């Protein structure tokens, strides 16, 4: 990720901001499904907000599932033994 966003004169130009905004738009899932002609900044920011929240939830959910899987595995299966050896090391 390049850090050269601000121009050298210390002033952040409109173009850079617009570029950042379009980048953000590209990241959002809602922008991928339909033709992303809509670039209303307000809506974008709001979607980003909800997207970040949903990502948080998803990460938590996946982490919980992973930890559950690891703890509830069949202790005699080879997989469990592998996991145990990994945890030991």
């Amino acid at each position, binding site marked *: 990720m390049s850090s050269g966003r601000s121009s050298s004169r210390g002033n952040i130009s409109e173009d850079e901001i617009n570029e950042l905004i379009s980048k953000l738009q590209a990241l959002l899932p809602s922008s991928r499904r339909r033709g992303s002609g809509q670039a209303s900044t307000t809506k974008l920011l709001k979607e980003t*907000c909800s997207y970040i929240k949903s*990502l948080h939830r998803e990460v938590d959910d996946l982490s919980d599932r992973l930890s559950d899987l*690891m703890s509830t595995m069949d202790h005699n299966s080879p997989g469990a033994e592998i996991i145990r050896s990994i945890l030991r090391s």
Partner: protein
Amino acid sequence: MADFSPNNSLLLKMPSHSPNFSSLLFYGQNHGEAAPANANAAAAMVENASLESSSAVVDTSPQDSASPMERKRKTTEDSATLSSAQSKVDCKQESKSKRGKRPHKETEEKSTTQDEATKGYIHVRARRGQATDSHSLAERVRRERISERMRMLQALVPGCDKVTGKALILDEIINYVQSLQNQVEFLSMRIASMSPVLYGFGLDSDGLHDHAQKMGGMFQEALAMPGPVMSQASPAPSQAIMDTTSTTPYSLQGQGSISFSQENGSTYLMQQAVGEPTRQELLNQLVFNNMCSFQ
């Protein structure tokens, strides 16, 4: 709206701004200027009142100790001027009602109105925000909404409140979203890998153990992975992956590189999620990618 009854009627018309009205009357009283000047002041003050939800304008300018409410009841001569200003005020109010709250402008407005009170009761609006036409007003509202959303995002993204400047904040947000996405992908891959490990790949015991060793690296990463990761990945690690393909003991190696190129994005992103993974771990990821692609 030209009601000439005493001051209470004005209060009724604008219930939420009664203190401001009292301040209007206060001004009229104190300075005893000519009626037109009073009307102008009243108009200006009323407009300001309609814009600001607080009554800051009122309380800062008392030159007497008497409360504004008392003054309101005392004055009667100002009611006429104020009511004549009412009609002016009303039409202006509609244009300004879009503005909403302006906490920043409060202090500005306080000083300006106090100055204006002694001078000519004019120019308050111009001072306030350089916005006299509907375009600028709408623009201003939009900008406020955007900055409000940005503040919300700043609160969401850790470490973003130390950054100032729209572009920097946007940059941070973009990084954060990307790393969150990578994290999700990483976690889901691990979870997907758990089941196949349990049920076996169909490899012989040595191969399974060998493979498990590699998977183990990945699991260690998963366990050691801290909270939200905000790493700045450089292109160099992807080169590391390219190098490790050659050391893959599996016969899938040839296809491995192909699948790697197909999953280049995801693998590269996965690196970002774990910061600086070791080459062995990168190899594990790559191997796992290969395995997944053949299931």
